[in-house]
């Protein structure tokens, strides 16, 4: 099993776009027992990946609770970098 942060980034090489909620849903089975597996940590990881050019934001909307939900995607260069550093 990969470290949680690796799994979060790697997930984006398999989907077109995803929000933090989508990521958590996808990784819940393997990482749900982690103490730091929570939405704010996942959002922060995703935004940090954006700052460092691994991901980009694709769109945002309001969720059912009235909170902003941001969707992220890995562009081609980001996908290549993630796959180069994090192997399966």
């Amino acid at each position: 099993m990969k470290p949680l942060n690796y799994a979060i980034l790697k997930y984006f090489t398999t989907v077109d776009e995803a929000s933090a909620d989508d990521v958590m849903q996808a990784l819940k089975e393997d990482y749900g027992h982690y103490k730091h597996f929570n939405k704010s940590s996942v959002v922060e990881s995703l935004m940090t990946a954006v700052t460092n050019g691994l991901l980009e934001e694709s769109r945002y909307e309001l969720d059912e609770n009235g909170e902003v939900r941001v969707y992220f995607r890995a562009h081609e260069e980001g996908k290549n970098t993630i796959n180069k550093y994090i192997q399966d």
Partner: protein
Amino acid sequence: MVNKYSGSDMMEMSGNDTSSVEKKYLKLTSNYFKKGLGIATLSGIFYGLYTAFLTLGMSRGVWADWYGENTAMLSAFVITYMLAAIGAAINDLSSAVWATGIAAFKGKLIDVFRTVNTKPGYIMIFAALVGGPLATTAYVAGLQLAGAIIIPISALCPAIGAILSKFLFKQELNARMMLGIGICFAASFLIGWTSVDINNLDASKVVILGLFAGFLAALGWGLEGCIAGYGTSMIDYEVGITIRQVTSGIANLLVLVPIIALIAGNFALAGQLTTQAFTSGPAMVWFIASGFCALFAFSLWYKGNSMCGTALGMAANGTFSFWGPFFSWILLGVIMGIDGWGMPLIDWFAAIMMAFGIWVIAENPLDRFRKNSVPLGAPIIENEEE
């Protein structure tokens, strides 16, 4: 309606309540940016605290004798180089114990083991070696060869980190950011310059070699900040710092200290002095405190760099050149009553300069006075009617 970043890729916004969702989005990005800036500044504060506790630890117990009466009859070479390396090793190992404990408590220890044997893990180890034993040795050697003049030279590290990040990781570095970095460098230079005795400056080969060593130290720390900051976008920062401190502590203790002992011509001295230092209770109390603060000094430095970019992160961390003398004055001068730990007026002036420099890197200060300015760190969104 389409919303997009100015000058960057298009980002669509779904839903109808434009102003509400836009405001919330801008608030989210601004809060993230401010948090990163706060973390990077906090790293500078912890750097100042760790420096003060380390200085105090290296003046207590057996260290008081080594640096004072010297009944052990240590040579000037051993006192200068070996004691500095032992001090750094104990500090980093103390920090490694704190980091491992905190990672275990937070359930991240398993990720430490999973990360070490991966590419980003190797990169973190490389960063630790460059910024730990190599840069520290260059800094200490520079101090001995050229004197305090290398302190302001080492303040170049944020500028070096920002330039390296532009070329290695394509991070943004525009003219305004360069100006801000220049202001921060000038402020750190001013603080460092107060330690320089201009009457004793010369341009001998030894001094020039020392200046080069000081530049190498700045290069090492700049490289560490740039690489480890990027690494922290892949590795959790608490996992990263555990790898960093364990690597640096072990390399200092098992490689650097024995090498210096060999050069000093007495290999056995490495074990003897290290054992005496580790068993000196009055000193170890302060090393435990310095290791705790070093943990946050470095982990928050990495995290801050990864959250707001190397240029801004390293400039905010660079405030340690103010916080170092500040906490040394508070702890050693005010609390412990040791003479010689004052706070020159120029340091306060430099602190204001640094704050302004950081602001200039973060945004154009004039934007604050414009109508419809976005929150600090939020992207500019252009609305186009379709």
